[in-house]
């Protein structure tokens, strides 16, 4: 099979997003939309669809990079329970804004991909869980779903094939943890968005305790194009371990921040310098977080790397959600880390001690270094704490806080030490807790009542 050279790369996920009316059904059908789904539903058996997706080596685009076809194959076939397809449109990893483009500008490709996937899974109910903040995306998706029902693409008799599929938009309400698949399912069930212990995995026991597949918006949109253009086309783009087109979100100190559709495996420096216009204001590059704020940072020297699952894993970081956060040489890394840690401390759901306490303490320690109150042992304490938080919790939010912390402290250690040394010999205040013996432990009101009570005897 011929390798497609990057210069020959043709966008598919964002091909039409800049065109007027790109979100409408007429526009979509005018460009060959729903032809792939119709072919699949009429000509392929569900198992053949799963096999094709396995063969395509499509990996999840939400963060974990799990092989999509394999995930689908875990759903039991001999069950009387309903099976659910849930679209994860919670997009909440800092630095990530790609699914928003799909939902606002080309929502039908997501509906088509979900339709094909639901058919493969023998699922008749699909929920799209969209973060509460994405109001425009919610409206655009709801309009597209309404159009699809009207045109017989959703509902009792999908595209005249007798297959039934209902699709419902479900809005979240501002909680990062609901992007974690089991947290999302809790939220969809009308509960606090608390992640659940795995196993059982959602494929076996998920939403309403029934078999459930949760896939990201971009992943399901890729399914559309795999069946539209073929497995060989998909596999010809990028490395064989995880091929295909990829949406990368570039933010931070670049001239042209934005969502860029590129072949998987594009060189990070090429992405930043050529697509995103280079570092802003003519400044120098200091470091890049390549896969959303939970990915480990790369120093400027480490940024000559392919943006794909394996190449980034070889550099001890990850593709994650594809959120590329670029920092120039004016960036205060202690400040940047503090910002990241504040985020995770704020978003921890509080179920697991290592996460609830760990994220809070990392934020506090980093904060005191930032504000000139740091102690010489603090950087080592942060590294130790990070290490002890990893892999000890129900979900990976603890790891998501520990990875950037561990990597930024160890790769930019000098900045932390400098700040601690420059601390102006403040009294080393212990911010938490007060004096152990509190003479006025009772409020004035309670003291008076107590005195009254005692006076009465």
């Amino acid at each position, binding site marked *: 099979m011929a390798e497609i050279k990057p210069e020959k790369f043709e966008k598919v996920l964002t091909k039409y997003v800049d065109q007027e009316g790109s979100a409408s059904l007429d526009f979509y059908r005018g460009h060959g939309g729903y032809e792939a789904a119709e072919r699949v539903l009429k000509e392929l058996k569900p198992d053949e669809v799963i096999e094709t997706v396995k063969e395509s080596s499509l990996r999840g685009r939400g963060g974990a990079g799990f092989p999509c076809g394999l995930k689908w194959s875990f759903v039991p076939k001999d069950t009387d329970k309903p099976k659910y397809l849930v679209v994860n449109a919670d997009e*909440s990893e800092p630095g990530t804004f790609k699914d928003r483009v799909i939902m606002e500008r080309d929502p039908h490709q997501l509906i088509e991909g979900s339709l094909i996937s639901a058919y493969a899974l023998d699922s008749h109910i699909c929920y799209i869980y969209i973060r509460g903040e994405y109001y425009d995306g919610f409206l655009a998706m709801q309009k597209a779903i309404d159009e699809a029902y009207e045109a017989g693409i959703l509902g009792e008799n999908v595209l005249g094939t007798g297959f039934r599929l209902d699709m419902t938009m479900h809005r979240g309400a501002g909680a990062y943890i609901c992007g974690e698949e089991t947290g999302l399912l809790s939220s969809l069930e009308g509960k606090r968005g608390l992640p659940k212990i795995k196993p059982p995995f959602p494929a076996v026991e998920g939403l309403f305790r029934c078999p459930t597949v949760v896939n990201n918006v971009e992943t399901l949109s890729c399914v559309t194009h795999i069946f539209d253009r073929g497995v060989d086309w998909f596999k010809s783009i990028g490395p064989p371990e995880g091929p295909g087109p990829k949406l990368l979100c570039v933010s931070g100190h670049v001239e042209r921040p934005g969502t860029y559709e590129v072949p998987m495996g594009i060189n990070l420096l090429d992405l930043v310098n050529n697509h995103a216009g280079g570092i802003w204001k003519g400044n120098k590059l200091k470091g890049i977080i390549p896969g959303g704020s939970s990915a480990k940072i790369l120093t400027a020297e480490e940024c000559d790397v392919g943006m794909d699952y394996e190449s980034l894993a070889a550099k001890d970081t990850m593709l994650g959600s594809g959120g590329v956060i670029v920092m120039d040489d004016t960036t205060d890394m202690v400040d940047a880390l503090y910002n990241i840690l504040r985020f995770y401390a704020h978003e921890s759901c509080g179920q697991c001690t290592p996460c609830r306490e760990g994220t809070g303490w990392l934020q506090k320690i980093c904060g005191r270094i930032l504000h000139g109150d740091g102690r010489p042992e603090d950087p080592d304490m942060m590294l130790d704490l990070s290490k002890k938080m990893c892999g000890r919790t129900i979900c990976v939010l603890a790891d998501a806080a520990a990875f950037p912390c561990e990597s930024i402290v160890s790769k930019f250690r000098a900045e932390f030490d400098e700040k601690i040394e420059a601390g102006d010999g403040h009294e080393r205040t212990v911010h938490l807790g007060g004096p152990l013996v509190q003479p006025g432990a009772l409020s004035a009101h309670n003291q008076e009542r107590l005195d009254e009570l005692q006076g009465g005897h």
Partner: protein
Amino acid sequence: MSDAPAVKKKFSNKGLEFIEWLLGRYPNKQAALLPVLRLAEEEFGNIDNDSVMLAAETLELSPGYVWGVLTFYTHYRREGDGKYLLQVCSTLPCALRGCRDIQHRLEEKLGIEAGETTEDGLFTLKKVECLGSCDTAPVVQVNEKYHENLDIEELDRLLETLRG
């Protein structure tokens, strides 16, 4: 035995129709809680104690349970929030592109700090985490609408427009 506490608020007829549709989309009533809270927010402007009671009654849940769910989420408009909820994104990508200046300007212009509401009840200022619009940082979400690529001049104009 006393009667169950009376719920003063009622959903509109259109709202009740929507709830009926909603209940057909899920296998149990509890799953409709987040959408029903949204409906309360839309119909009453915010979610107060009475809205919680109404949602609980509608979905046959206990008010305590509904409070527990409601307070887990940060994006619902709550009692006391101003007419305009200004949510300043403060996460790293926005911080790298000047969201602190935006927040300081808002605090200065409105005379309140993040988390507070102006005395005239017009504005509530909130510092929030990633709004998923990092390519157009800095960003402020005003009620449902994103205002992107803000600078101080743009922000001042926005406030003028909102003040009417």
